[in-house]
């Protein structure tokens, strides 16, 4: 098994090609800016209102967390697609995949190592964003339930792993990373549309973000079917990438 050697190389690549830095910077920005915005928004509005009194209710930590989950649900998905779309496609386009796969490297371990490195990159990003959000929300807006906050971030991270694995699967299909990225976005968009159909909503991965939001607001709620289906999608996407690699000409 060479999966660890491949993972080590992939992880190093995430650092050397600045992907880790970009992902960490984006998540950190949202983690920092959301509680800051909620703290200072009334003052900003008051200053720009030129003396006209504007009544804004005081923001709570839940408001900041809900907005944080919301923002990550949109921008984070886009970042996930952008970072993962070239994972295999670019290797095929450049020919580096030929050099690696002419060594004793299984197609499956090649795909798994790619996904693992991307997941670690996003886990670091989510962790940094979460730390910043937790610290500033606590300092500026009030205390936050640590357990619920942890659960929210784990759900966010899992949703990103779904997005990464779908993008990785398309990246195995195409030599063009743009085609892989476009199809991944279309798939995620279709999944988003399907999740607006009430009977199907609890089963779609985006319900994880809704679960996160309700944890932030009410401290409750659940979407266990979505959790199971998300796991199934991740496994199916990696298996599909493996199959595609073994069937398509490199």
């Amino acid at each position: 098994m060479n999966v660890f050697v491949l993972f080590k190389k992939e992880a190093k690549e995430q650092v050397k090609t600045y992907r880790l830095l970009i992902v960490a910077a984006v998540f950190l920005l949202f983690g920092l800016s959301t509680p800051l915005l909620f703290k200072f928004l009334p003052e900003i509005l008051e200053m720009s209102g030129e003396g006209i009194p504007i009544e804004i209710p005081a923001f709570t930590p839940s408001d900041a967390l809900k907005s944080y989950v919301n923002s990550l649900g949109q921008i984070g998905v886009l970042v996930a697609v952008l970072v993962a779309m070239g994972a295999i496609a670019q290797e095929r386009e450049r020919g580096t995949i030929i050099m690696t796969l002419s060594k004793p490297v299984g197609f499956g371990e090649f795909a798994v190592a790619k996904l693992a490195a991307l997941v670690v990159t996003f886990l670091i990003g989510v962790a940094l964003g979460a730390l910043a959000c937790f610290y500033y929300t606590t300092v500026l807006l009030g205390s936050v339930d640590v357990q619920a906050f942890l659960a929210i971030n784990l759900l966010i991270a899992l949703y990103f792993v779904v997005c990464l694995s779908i993008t990785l699967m398309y990246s195995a299909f195409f030599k063009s990373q743009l085609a892989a990225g476009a199809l991944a976005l279309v798939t995620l968009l279709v999944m988003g549309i399907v999740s607006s159909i009430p009977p199907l909503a609890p089963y779609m991965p985006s319900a994880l973000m809704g679960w996160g939001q309700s944890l932030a607001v009410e401290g409750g709620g659940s979407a266990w079917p979505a959790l199971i289906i998300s796991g199934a999608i991740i496994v199916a996407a990696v298996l599909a990438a493996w199959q595609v690699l073994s069937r398509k000409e490199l």
Partner: protein
Amino acid sequence: MTEAIVCKGLSKRYGRLLALDNLDLHVEEKTIFGFLGPNGAGKTSALRILAGLSRATSGKAWVAGEEARLNSSVLQRRLGYLPEDPAFYNWMSANEYLTFVGELFKLPSAELAARRAELLALVDLAGAASRRIGGYSRGMKQRLGIAQALMNRPAVLLLDEPCSALDPIGRLEVLETLVKLKEQKTTVFMSSHILADVERVCDVVAVIDKGKLIVQAGVEELRQRFAHPVFELEFDQPADSAIPLLQKVPGVTRVVTENRAGGVPVLRVHVTDTAKARHGLLHAVETSNLALRRYEIVLPSLEEVFVELVANHKEQSR
């Protein structure tokens, strides 16, 4: 002698294109085998199947005793492969890349470090080993490609156009390396367009066209069997006026003008029957009133054999 590579009825189809057509090959151990063919003949397809990177549509192949199956790790442990245009992770250095390859072959770290240093010295990259590969020239990348293919001390080395990106000195170094490898009992299977290189190092060659094997033989045997003799005629002045006279001599198939250093053109006269042509050619030269400087029967080059074989095959398949 045992066989390092065997192909039996190997075919590869891409949609409607038949890239390999029932290819049979036998490559003996510890030889340098030249795999020749025009562009699109199927050389890269065959090499990829042998390297476990592509699946044959039909037929079978064995490399170092192991069946060439897609993504077979047992197979890939026994061979080294260099693609035509080796591509690397540009952010890595040669040191990092060779370490990565050594780890994939599970070399213990002390052995890996020694092998890496040995290979970097062999391909003359020791001085640039810590530089990013992204800044390497094509020749340097090609040499690094050869080094990575040798990391596991393969029994069989598969090289797809190993000299195509190299300057004459680089080519010479690679060819010398290949000869050294043969001395170390490695079988080298190389495709090449540069027939002078093949002629210099290969023991046996196979010529393929449109996926079909035209011939497989030793370089010398190939010349004897397939090439007609060539007369070289060198004059003191331009000799265009002699060409029509030479072409009329019985047994002459074609006359080719070659410009060589010194500016005096040399006429290469291809004939079917040396004895018959010998007197006729001299008579034609006499008639032309040109001053003959040199008149010699030469052995045809592998390039001439190759051109003739491929041309004959194309004619037959029409």
